[in-house]
C-alpha cells in the first residue's frame, strides 16, 4: 500500500521532503492534479528501511514488551488486519481498529475473543450507520458491469490494489460468466498489481476457512490467481505498450488511483471518457467521487457511485459488547455525534483527537503462583465456615514478566495480626486465674467510649482496652509476653 502511494504520489523531483502522515487518507482531500509535484512523500527506500524494522507477529502470539503482554486478534477487515489486546498486570485494554463482520469475504473472520475479560475497550474506525448490505452493493456492481459489457462498453474501477477489491474481482468474474458473458478480460493496472495479487495468494493462513481448505488441496486460495493462470486477468504496472499485446475490448479495468489524480485510471478516462456506453464505478467509500470527477470536464462516460464500506457499525459493536461486561468503552466523538450506541451511559467515554483520557481501572486481583516451599510454611487458621486465613510473608520474584511467590529471605519480616471478638470480663478472669498472686489494683470502665483501663500491682503493668486498640505497658519483657499470651488467647492470631 505504501509503495503504491509512493508510486502514485511520491518520488517527486523536488528535494524538499515534507513528511506526510503515512496511512492518513486525508492528504488526498482537495489535492489537485499537480499536487504530487508540490509535496513529496517518503521514498521506496524509506519504506524498505521502515518495514525492515517491523517485527512480524501472528494472531494469537503473545508478545512480551517489558511489563505488557500484547496480542493481535484477527479483525476481519483485510489480510492480516488486527485488533489488539494489551494486558498490563491483569488490566486488559482492547484496541479495536478497522474491523468487519461481513460474511463471505477473503480475510480470516473477526475474532470476538479480543473482548474477553477486557476492562477497557477503545474503538476507533467505526461506521455510524448500517447502510446498504454488502451483498446488495456487490450485486448492483455486478449488474452495472454486466449491463455495460452487454452494450459493448468498458468498465473502469478506480481503486487501490488491495483489500476488498480481491473479492470484487472474484465476484465479477463469476457474475458476468453467469450472465453469459464469456471471454471478457480483466486488467489490474497498478505499480504494485503483480506483487499484490501474487502475494495475497500465498497468505492462505490469513484467510477464511473456505480459502484455507483450498490451500490444503493445493488450489490457489485466491481465485484471481486462477484467473491469471487462465489468462482472464492480466496485470501491468502502467497503461503502456507492455499491455498492448494482451489488450482487447470490451474489458474491465481496475486501476489507480481512486482520487483520479494519478495513475493509469487517468489514461482510461481519456480513452473512454467520450463514450456513454462506458462506465466508471467508484467503490471506495473513502474518496469523494464528485471531487474525483471534477478534474475532468464534459465526460460522456457513465459514473456510478456504489461505495463498499464493510467496517463495523456502532450498532454492531454495541450488540457484541453487551455480553462482554467491560468497565469502559471509548468511542470517537465524531461518530457518536450521529448515533447513540445502545449501551449503558456509564460505560461510555467519548474522545476526540488529541484528548488525553484518564481511566481508572479497579481490577482486583492478578494470578500468580507460590512455591511448595513457601506454601508448606504457612500456618492457616480456621475462622469458621471452612474459611482459612493466614499471614503470608514472601518474596515476589519477577522473571520475564512471569511472577512467582517464593519463601521470604528472612522470617523476621513476618508480620502478625490479631482480630476477632473480645470480652473484658473474660480477660480479667483469665488474668487472676493464670497469674499467681495477680492483684488488680484498679479497674476503670468507661461504658460510653467502651474503653477500660486495668492496672495490675503484681506484676506491675497496665492494660488499656479501647475499641479495637489494646495497649500493654510493662517494665519488663517477660511480663509483657505473659500478658500478651492471655490477651490474645481470646482472639484470632494470624
Amino acid at each position, binding site marked *: 500500500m505504501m509503495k503504491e502511494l509512493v508510486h502514485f504520489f511520491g518520488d517527486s523531483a523536488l528535494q524538499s521532503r515534507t513528511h506526510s502522515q503515512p496511512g492518513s487518507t486525508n492528504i488526498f482531500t482537495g489535492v489537485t492534479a499537480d499536487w504530487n509535484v508540490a509535496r513529496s512523500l517518503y521514498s521506496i527506500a524509506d519504506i524498505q528501511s521502515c518495514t525492515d524494522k517491523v517485527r512480524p507477529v501472528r494472531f494469537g502470539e503473545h508478545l512480551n514488551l517489558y511489563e505488557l503482554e500484547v496480542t493481535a486478534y484477527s479483525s476481519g477487515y483485510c489480510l492480516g488486519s488486527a485488533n489488539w489486546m494489551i494486558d498490563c498486570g*491483569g488490566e486488559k485494554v482492547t484496541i479495536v481498529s478497522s474491523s468487519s463482520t461481513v460474511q463471505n469475504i477473503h480475510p480470516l473472520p473477526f475474532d470476538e475473543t479480543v473482548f474477553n475479560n477486557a476492562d477497557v475497550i477503545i474503538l476507533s474506525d467505526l461506521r455510524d450507520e448500517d447502510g446498504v448490505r454488502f451483498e446488495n452493493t456487490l450485486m448492483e456492481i455486478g449488474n452495472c458491469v454486466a449491463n455495460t459489457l452487454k452494450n459493448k462498453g468498458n468498465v473502469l474501477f478506480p481503486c487501490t490494489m488491495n483489500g476488498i477489491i480481491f473479492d470484487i474481482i472474484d465476484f465479477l468474474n463469476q457474475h458476468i460468466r453467469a450472465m453469459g458473458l464469456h471471454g471478457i478480460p480483466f486488467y489490474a493496472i497498478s505499480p504494485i498489481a503483480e506483487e499484490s495479487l501474487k502475494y495475497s495468494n500465498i497468505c492462505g493462513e490469513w484467510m477464511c476457512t473456505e480459502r484455507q481448505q483450498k490451500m490444503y488441496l493445493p488450489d490457489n486460495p485466491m481465485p484471481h490467481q486462477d484467473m491469471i493462470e487462465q489468462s482472464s486477468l492480466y496485470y501491468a504496472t502502467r497503461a503502456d505498450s507492455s499491455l498492448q499485446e494482451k489488450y482487447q475490448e470490451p474489458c474491465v479495468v481496475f486501476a489507480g488511483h481512486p482520487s483520479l489524480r494519478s495513475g493509469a485510471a487517468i489514461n482510461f478516462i481519456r480513452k473512454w471518457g467520450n463514450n456513454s456506453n462506458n462506465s466508471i464505478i467508484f467503490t471506495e467509500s473513502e474518496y469523494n467521487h464528485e471531487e474525483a470527477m471534477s478534474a475532468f470536464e464534459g465526460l460522456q462516460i457513465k459514473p456510478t457511485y456504489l461505495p463498499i464500506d464493510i467496517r463495523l457499525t456502532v450498532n454492531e459493536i454495541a450488540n457484541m459488547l453487551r455480553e462482554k461486561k467491560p468497565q469502559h468503552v471509548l468511542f470517537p466523538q465524531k461518530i457518536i455525534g450521529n448515533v447513540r450506541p445502545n449501551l449503558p451511559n456509564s460505560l461510555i467515554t467519548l474522545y476526540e483527537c488529541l484528548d488525553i483520557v484518564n481511566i481508572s481501572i479497579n481490577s482486583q486481583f492478578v494470578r500468580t503462583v507460590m512455591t511448595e516451599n513457601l506454601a508448606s510454611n504457612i500456618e492457616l487458621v480456621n475462622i469458621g465456615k471452612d474459611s482459612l486465613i493466614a499471614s*503470608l510473608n514472601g518474596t515476589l520474584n519477577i522473571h520475564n514478566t512471569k511472577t512467582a511467590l517464593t519463601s521470604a529471605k528472612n522470617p*523476621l519480616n513476618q508480620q502478625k*495480626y490479631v*482480630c476477632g471478638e473480645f470480652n473484658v470480663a473474660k480477660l480479667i478472669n483469665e488474668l487472676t486465674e493464670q497469674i499467681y498472686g495477680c492483684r488488680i489494683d484498679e479497674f476503670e470502665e468507661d461504658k460510653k467510649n467502651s474503653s477500660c483501663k486495668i492496672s495490675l500491682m503484681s506484676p506491675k503493668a497496665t492494660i488499656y482496652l479501647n475499641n479495637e486498640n489494646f495497649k500493654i505497658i510493662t*517494665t519488663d519483657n517477660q511480663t509483657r509476653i505473659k500478658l500478651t499470651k492471655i490477651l490474645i488467647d481470646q482472639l484470632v492470631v494470624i
Partner: protein
Amino acid sequence: MIKVIPLGAGQDVGRSCILMSIGDDSTGIKNIMFDCGMHMGYNDERRFPDFSYISKTNRFTEQLDCIIVSHFHLDHCGALPYFTEMCGYEGPIFMTHPTKAICPILLEDYRKITVERKGETNFFTSQMIKDCMKKVTAVNLHQTIKVNGDDDLEIKAFYAGHVLGAAMFYVRVGTQSTVYTGDYNMTPDRHLGAAWIDKVRPDLLITESTYATTIRDSKRTRERDFLKKVHDCVSQGGKVLIPVFALGRAQELCILIETYWERNNLNVPVYFSAGMTEKANDYYKLFINWTNEKIKNIFVQRNMFDFKHIKPWDRQYMDLPGPAVLFATPGMLHIGTSLEVFKKWAPHPENMVIMPGYCVAGTVGAKVLNGDKEIYIDAYNKILVKLQVKNLSFSAHADAKGILQLIKQCDPKNVMLVHGEKAKMEFLQEKIKRECRVPCYSPANGETIIIDTPLSIPVDVSVDLLKRHFAAQKLPLPSLDKRIDIMRIKPVNGIPIQGVLTMEPDQIPRLMDVDEAMRDTNLPLRELTFEVIKTINPNKMQKNIDSDICTQALENIYETVRKSLKDNVNDVEVFKDSSQIKIRSMLIRVSDKNFNSLNISWNYRDENMANHVMSIIEKILPE
C-alpha cells in the same frame, strides 16, 4: 510431575509416538500424545504404536487431551488415521498449516502401496484419511492456543526447519512445561530456514537425536561434493539415481541441480519421478511463507519452485541410453519407482546412486549404504549391486552440535532423547550431562520416565497490595561518593511482600492487604501495642564520662541492632536521632518520666522483629 512414555521412537527411529502426562492438583493431569507415526521397517502390527497402552477398552478420547503432530513425515503421522478412524480417538489434533495440507497426500500414497500393491485389507481407506484430517486444527507459528478452551493447557509452535511446516511444540500446563522438537535442523538450507526456539526454560525437552554422534562439515562443502559427484558421473555417460522423499529434501536438491545446470549450461536431462506428488511443488509455491527469507523475497519475480531443467519422469525413459539424473521416490529404496529403477541401473558400474538421507534398518536403502553387493528383495529376487554408491548426509536433522545448541537455546531442566539409535544416544546422553549439566534420559519404548517438578499453587494477589509493595521498593542507588560499578547494576527481580492469605473452599487462595482481608472476613482487626519501660542499671554499664547514660545506651543499641538487622533483613531501615531509634513501628526513646529509663513501644504486627530487637537490648542492658 511429568511422566513420559515413548510408544515409538524410544531408542529407535520410526513410529514416533510419545505420551506425556503433565499437571498437578490445581490444573488436573493432562495427557498429550506427541506424533502418531508408523514404522517403515515393519509390515505387521509393529508398524503402528501399541495404543492399547493408553486404554485397553479403546476409550482414547477420554484418556487423551490432544495429539500434536510435528511434521508430515510418515514416521510422525502415519498412524493418525488408524488411531482416529479405526481406534476411535475423537479429541483435538494440532499441526501446522503445511503439515495439514501435505500429510493426507503422503498418507494416501502409503495407503495405496499397502492396500493396492501389497493387497492388505484391514487398513484405513481414503475416506478415513479425509475424515481424520477434518478433525485437525491448523496452527500458526508462535500462536498460543488454549486446548479445549482450557486456560491451563497451552501449546505454541516454533519453526523447526526440517521440512516444510515442521514445528517444535511448547506445551504448558499450569507452571509445568515441555518442549517436543519433532525433527529439526539447526542450519538453514537452500529452501528452509533454521530451527528457532525462545528461551522457554521447560521442565523437559524431548529432542530427536538422529545424528547424535555426527558432526557434519559445512553445508557448502556438502553441496559442492554432491554436485561434483553428479557432474562427474553424467559427464562419463552414467546415470545418477537419487532416491528422495517427494517433499522436503527433493526440493532442496532440485534447487541445487537447477541452479548448477543453469550456471554450467548443462543439457543432460534431469527427471523428477513425481507420481502421486505431481503437486508437491505446488505446496511449496503456496506455502512460500514457510520457506526461507531469500525465496520469500524473490518469489514475485521468480518462484524458485518453478523448475526449468527438471522434467517429469516417464517409465519408458528407464531404458533410454545416455546420461541422465533422476530424483525418484521413495528415499529408502524399499518400494516404488526408486526401487524399480535401482534394479535396472544397479548392475552397471558407470551408474551411480546417491543416498542423500537416512535409511531405516531393514530397507534396501540401508543395505545399499551398508555396502552389500548382493541384495535380496524377497526370497527369489536378488540385485547385483555394481554401481557406485555415494552417501551424502543431506537429511535435515540437527547434528550433535545442533542438538547442544538447541538445548542451550531453550534452557531446559531435563532432556530426553528419542528418535535415534541406542548406542549413539548413550554417547550423546553423556555429552549432554557433561556439557549442559542437566539430567538426560533415553528411555526405550514402553519405558516410563518420571520428572519431578516443583509443585506450585496458584494465588490471586490483590492489585492494591502489589502496587503498594512495588511503590515501596527502593532502588539500591549508590551514594555519590561511591564509584558506580556498572556490572553491579541489575534489575530488581524479587521484592519482599507481606499480606494476608485467605482461603475459601473450591477457590483459588487470595493474597491481600490485612485491611482488605478483614473486610472480606468480617472480623474486627485489633491493634495491639506495647510499651516496655526499661530501666538501665548504671552499674552494669561501661561508663563514658562524655555523654549521659541513656544516650550511650541508645548509641549501643543502634549499632548492634543495625548490624544484626543488616545481616538478617536488609530491607528494614533503622532510623536514629539524638533521643530515639525507629525501626518500623518500634520506637526506642529516652523516657521523659522515668529516670535512667528507655521507653520501648511497638505494634504487635512487628512482634517477630521486636522480639529479636528486645533480645539484643536485654543483652546490652542487663538487669
